């Protein structure tokens, strides 16, 4: 690998350093200068976690070859401020609660800094437009906008610096108080170290060979060339697993590395550890695999026919069926004034936490196998790992690293097993950081679903009966499918007192990317169908959408769909408060649309017409720089 000498100024310091010729500016900052406040969220200029200033201009440092920065003045988030001395913008981010997982936040702080440097009086629309290149997956952006506006007003002396310290200081109780978020300073300054930011002496880098076939038998693996590559310290396959090789949140059906066959594109087959990331990549590229393609399943309806089996030993593709039966729907439909039937579908969705999967594994001072990773469930991971590694449970240790967004996506133990195998094999620390592309292709998604719905109501809007049947694509492995089906079934008919209910949810195996845990876990899919049905019903019955919901809403003492007595039920309060909050104009969906009078309130944002900065700025002056 060739190297070059780079001379430049970083955060006011003159730097002269030999670095890899092919490094991007982001690599140079993170690997050579340990300035890990700039994060790598996507590596392709699509997220903004790596934003830095070059000669005063904000750019995404993953798109800049380090060589291009020769002689330049670079400013990173570490140069903007530190927890002891934060900039106005950083203080405002703390004050409004703009940081959640924190992974996008250094980039956001940079984008906000650039926005206000370019136009200290930027309007909200101009702020949004100029920060449009930075993605946040946690906050919904609102508190970030609040922070930038707060900082702008302080910088312009329109507000006092005191606004940064306006937290609740209650006389009696801290419960219900807006106190200072304790992890905010480390997040807004980039000081917090996520797994990908960690380094250890003698640390090796792991790379993974993944399946490019949806369903195929592995006939032969040729490692001979890979083993000869300089710097390669260990290669592991499924044969290296000492214990019982499977894991999964509900059903343990997934091997650490594919065994005999692959079941989806992106499945891990071989892991390599080498001195450098580049060597590990070269080794992975040098591995040859012979496959025999197998007929594959992509459609859950087809999966139910059981002509092809994804996991032969289960003798079925059905992962889980959850039935709920209450009353007698058939009889109730006969009594209904209106019966509505319809179908709904939802798509697979990626978690898109800004922090790609990453972890470090090592054997600690007590000889304990240790894995540091942003896992959402280290308790369960330790159980599974002990079994996989054939170790007593106290010889396995999981440490949680700060989680750069999870949303359920980091509940699956899909890479920690490989780290453990290589740390055990090489006795050296191992680090693994997925690229965004690798993360997208290999990790679980929200279950895509199809729901058939039949609802019977009285003229007055009471739901007499509902039959709901959801079929979900669980993909190649079980992950959280069982739990997702359960929640979808229990909650799917909504917060409504329905005496006759027939609910079925089914999750099946296919050769698609696995589906797993995702915020709102099945309930999102089935409740979407119910809430759409209620509006369809409201239109048919000429009723207000709030009214039809209130008529059916649970009250304290009602029996739920799973026959549990409710000790409290706030849905009516919630609906009443919401109706007031939104100043809802009553009426049936039939008469609505542009004619309604409750729209265009100040609680809406402006519809986005790009070019806020081509018009005028906050002062009514043309923007000129």
């Amino acid at each position: 690998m060739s190297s070059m000498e780079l001379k430049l100024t970083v955060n006011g310091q003159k730097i002269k350093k030999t670095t890899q010729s092919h490094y991007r500016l982001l690599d140079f900052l993170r690997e050579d200068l340990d300035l890990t406040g700039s994060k790598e969220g996507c590596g392709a200029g699509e997220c903004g976690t790596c934003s830095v200033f070059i000669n005063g201009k904000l750019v995404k440092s993953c798109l800049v070859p380090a060589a291009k920065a020769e002689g330049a003045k670079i400013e990173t988030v570490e140069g903007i401020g530190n927890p002891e001395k934060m900039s106005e913008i950083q203080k405002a981010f703390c004050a409004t609660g703009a940081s959640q997982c924190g992974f996008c936040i250094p980039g956001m702080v940079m984008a906000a800094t650039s926005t206000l440097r370019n136009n200290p009086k930027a309007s909200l629309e101009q702020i949004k437009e100029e920060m449009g290149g930075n993605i946040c997956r946690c906050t919904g952006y609102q508190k970030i906008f609040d922070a930038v506006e707060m900082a702008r007003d302080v910088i312009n002396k329109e507000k006092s610096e005191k606004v940064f310290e306006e937290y609740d200081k209650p006389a009696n109780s801290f419960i219900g108080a807006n106190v200072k978020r304790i992890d905010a300073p480390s997040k807004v300054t980039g000081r917090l170290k996520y797994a990908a930011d960690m380094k250890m002496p003698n640390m090796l880098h792991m790379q993974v060979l993944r399946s490019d076939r949806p369903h195929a038998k592995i006939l032969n693996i040729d490692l001979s060339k890979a083993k000869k590559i300089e710097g390669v310290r260990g290669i592991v396959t499924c044969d290296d697993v000492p214990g019982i090789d499977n894991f999964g949140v509900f059903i343990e059906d997934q091997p650490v590395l594919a065994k005999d066959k692959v079941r989806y594109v992106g499945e891990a087959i071989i892991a390599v550890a080498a001195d450098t990331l580049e060597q590990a990549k070269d080794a992975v590229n040098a591995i040859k695999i012979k496959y025999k393609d197998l007929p594959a399943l992509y459609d859950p309806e087809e999966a139910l026919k059981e002509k092809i089996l994804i996991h032969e030993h289960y003798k079925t593709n059905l992962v889980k069926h959850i039935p709920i039966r209450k009353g007698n729907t058939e009889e109730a439909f006969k009594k209904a004034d209106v019966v509505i039937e319809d179908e709904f579908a939802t798509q697979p969705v990626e978690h898109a936490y800004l922090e790609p999967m990453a972890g470090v594994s090592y054997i600690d001072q007590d000889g304990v196998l240790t894995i540091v990773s942003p896992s959402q469930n280290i308790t369960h991971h330790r159980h599974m790992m002990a079994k996989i590694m054939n170790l007593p449970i106290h010889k396995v240790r999981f440490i949680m690293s700060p989680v750069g967004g999870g949303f359920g996506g980091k509940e699956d133990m899909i890479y920690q097993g490989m780290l453990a195998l290589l740390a055990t094999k090489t006795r050296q620390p191992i680090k693994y950081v997925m690229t965004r592309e690798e993360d997208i292709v290999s990790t679980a998604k929200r279950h895509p679903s199809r729901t058939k719905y039949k609802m019977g109501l009285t003229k007055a809007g009471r739901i007499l009966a509902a039959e709901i049947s959801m079929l979900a694509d669980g993909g190649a492995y079980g992950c959280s499918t069982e739990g997702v089906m359960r929640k979808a079934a229990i909650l799917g008919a909504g917060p409504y007192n329905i005496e006759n209910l027939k609910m079925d949810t089914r999750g099946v195996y296919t050769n698609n990317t696995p589906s797993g845990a995702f915020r709102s876990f099945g309930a999102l899919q089935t409740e979407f169908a119910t809430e759409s049905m209620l509006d369809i019903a409201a239109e048919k019955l000429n009723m207000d959408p709030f009214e039809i919901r209130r008529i059916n809403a649970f009250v304290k003492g009602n029996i739920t769909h799973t026959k549990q007595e409710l000790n409290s039920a706030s849905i009516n309060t919630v609906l009443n408060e919401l109706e007031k909050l939104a100043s809802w104009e009553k009426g049936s969906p039939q008469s609505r649309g542009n004619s309604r009078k409750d729209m265009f309130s100040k609680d809406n944002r402006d519809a986005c017409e790009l070019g806020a900065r081509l018009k005028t700025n906050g002062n009514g002056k043309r923007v000129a720089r």
Partner: protein
Amino acid sequence: MLRYDNYFIPKTLKEYFELTSKVKDCRIVAGCTDMLPWAREGRGGDVFFKNVVDVSRIKELNVFKFGSKKILLGAATNYQKLFLDKKIRKSLKVLPQVSVWFADDQIRELATIGGNIVNASPAGDGMPAFLTLNTKVTVASFKNKKIIKLKMPLEKFVKGRNKVALNKNDLLVDFEVENTDGYGACFEKVGHRRSLVISTVCVSSLVKLNKNKFQDVRVAVGGVCEVPTRLTKTENFLKGKSIDENNIYVASKLDLDVIQSRSRREYRREVLQNFIIRSILKSLGKTNINETIQKFDNKIELKMEDAHV
């Protein structure tokens, strides 16, 4: 992962040609905003080049010559300059409008107009706008140790999807565009969001009026065909005609067959027609555009029924 051994940054055309005639196995880059995302899994994968030559700092590619008739923009001009420059905002109104839809502020600081054209992506936003500016581009090549420059219309330069009229080591040097001060301009684009958008359809239009008549109309479309193109039937129909809804409506139907994309064809066809109408109306610079459009909507509602059968 993109890997290379050497990264060269020549400062003049001469330096560039001397380097590329001497050094074999060169890959030419400018803003790098397409190259680095390309060299990743699912696209180019792990890529190695012996040598990379960065042309973004070549003097001749950074010219900016402003004239009352013609304006010369170096090929390494970045999109953020098109967005921010006051003179451009006045005399080349359509360019800032394209820029604001182009990726985001940070990518625009790097992405060059030359790089965007040389990529020749059917979904590239730059080309339709430059087409409406009657752009001529200059290509430099090196023969017998001499730099030879050739000027050609942009339409000639872009030959197809990812194909341009450049031989090995030739370089796109600059863009000569028409000063369109006094024109109304509009750029319409649709994708799936409002920042970092990839076009499904985009339309660029320029309109000049003479009293109550269209003196000049230029409309170009991107995202729907192999190479973005001017809608000449639409333009010719409107030139000299009076500004009225019927004329615009009739014109909007004349070029819909330019759509070559097989995917989402019907959708693109409908949006294209809507965009042609709307961008012309917006270019007319009516102060209350929504009201105008609403009136337009109501007036031709019936006439349009047949367009979609």
